[in-house]
């Protein structure tokens, strides 16, 4: 599974709100694999091209911890 990581739910929601307006479907969960630098944080799952979604988020200056891929399920 691939997701975009955010420090908190606020930024995950802000990104989701923006992406929803652009036609993406999104889902917010806790980051299933946080590292020791980030601690608890949130994951935004996107249906569609996640890298396009990531570009939109970055162009709109929504702070994030980047895209992470976990496992080979997808």
């Amino acid at each position: 599974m691939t997701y975009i990581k955010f420090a908190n739910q606020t930024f995950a929601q802000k990104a989701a709100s923006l992406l929803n307006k652009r036609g993406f479907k999104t889902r917010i969960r806790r980051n299933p694999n946080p590292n020791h630098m980030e601690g608890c944080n949130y994951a935004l799952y996107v249906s569609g091209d996640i890298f396009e979604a990531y570009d939109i988020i970055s162009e709109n200056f929504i702070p994030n911890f980047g895209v992470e891929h976990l496992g080979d399920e997808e």
Partner: protein
Amino acid sequence: MIYLDNAATSFPKPKCVLEAMCKASLFSANPGRGGHRLSVKAGETVYKTREKAASIFGADSERVIFTKNCTESLNMVIKGCVKKGDHVIISSLEHNSLLRPVQKLFEQGVITYDIAQVVPKNDEQTVMNFQSLIKPNTRLIACCHVSNVFGTVLPIEKIGLLCREKGILFAVDAAQSAGTFRYDINNSAIDFLCLPGHKGLLGPMGTGLLILNQSSQLESFIEGGTGSLSLEPSQPDVLPDKFESGTVNLPGIAGLYEGLRMVESIGCENILKKESRLTEWITSELKNINGVTVYDNMHSKTNSGVISFNIGKIHSEQIGELLDQNNIACRAGYHCSALAHKSASTIAQGTVRISPGFFNGINDIKKLIFCINKIAMRQKIW
């Protein structure tokens, strides 16, 4: 009961506000913390309220901070942006929510401060009074937009421009103006806007907002759990977490969302227009009653929804009690604002404050005027 104490808190709360609070209490968990659906759902409620406030006040959503009231917001700003040796200027109409944190810092030897005299109906003189107090170490100018006692509207745009010109931070106490006056924070000279959620925004008590301009920096007020960067011992710099340690008031925030939505749909201008018409009418009627003093000399060119009066030499608390006996709720006394009463020389009696809200109608005001007439006539034999 006719409720005319909206400057203290708006009443009645809209049904949608109460229903949202109830729903949030019944079906939500701690927002921004857990990964389970109840928590995420609660986080969505918090975010949509943040987003709604951001849209109404022209701010970035993460720069909308939830507090418990306007007083807490003011404390966060005043104590979070000054350092030892700084100088602060406040106005002569401040509520204790702004005066007391400044006074506390003064007593602790952290800052010095001065009080700029507000001259009603003379914005230029008011701004000059602020300007004349600026020192090389002036860090912050903090003032109300509307006086909670007399309804005086301060020229905050002009004071803000003065602050920008001099490189001074500018904080506005919008306790009496939020919901009636329009703000566009990111396009204004306001660095910090402090608001209650439970007055003009029609939300529940126990809610407040602090809205930061895009460029504003502030130290955290309290530190603790934020649900983010949890392995770090230091308070995270990330917004809004930096200013929201501990569990937020979810039912209150859910109610506030509905209040904001209602204000947005009615429109601040329409609310102000209605409240102003009512206060203008009250003012003109009161001035026709023998023995009544209306403090309209403290009014500004722009109207607001607050007026103060007295009857003869009777203490305002007695008038407030008599109005209550006639099922009229208003606020008498000093309104937590010694500065304003000193400015208007009303320390001896205090004043009776009438603050109509959007839900008041003409019949409420007719009843008020009738009762004040009755009390004033009776006062002649006291």
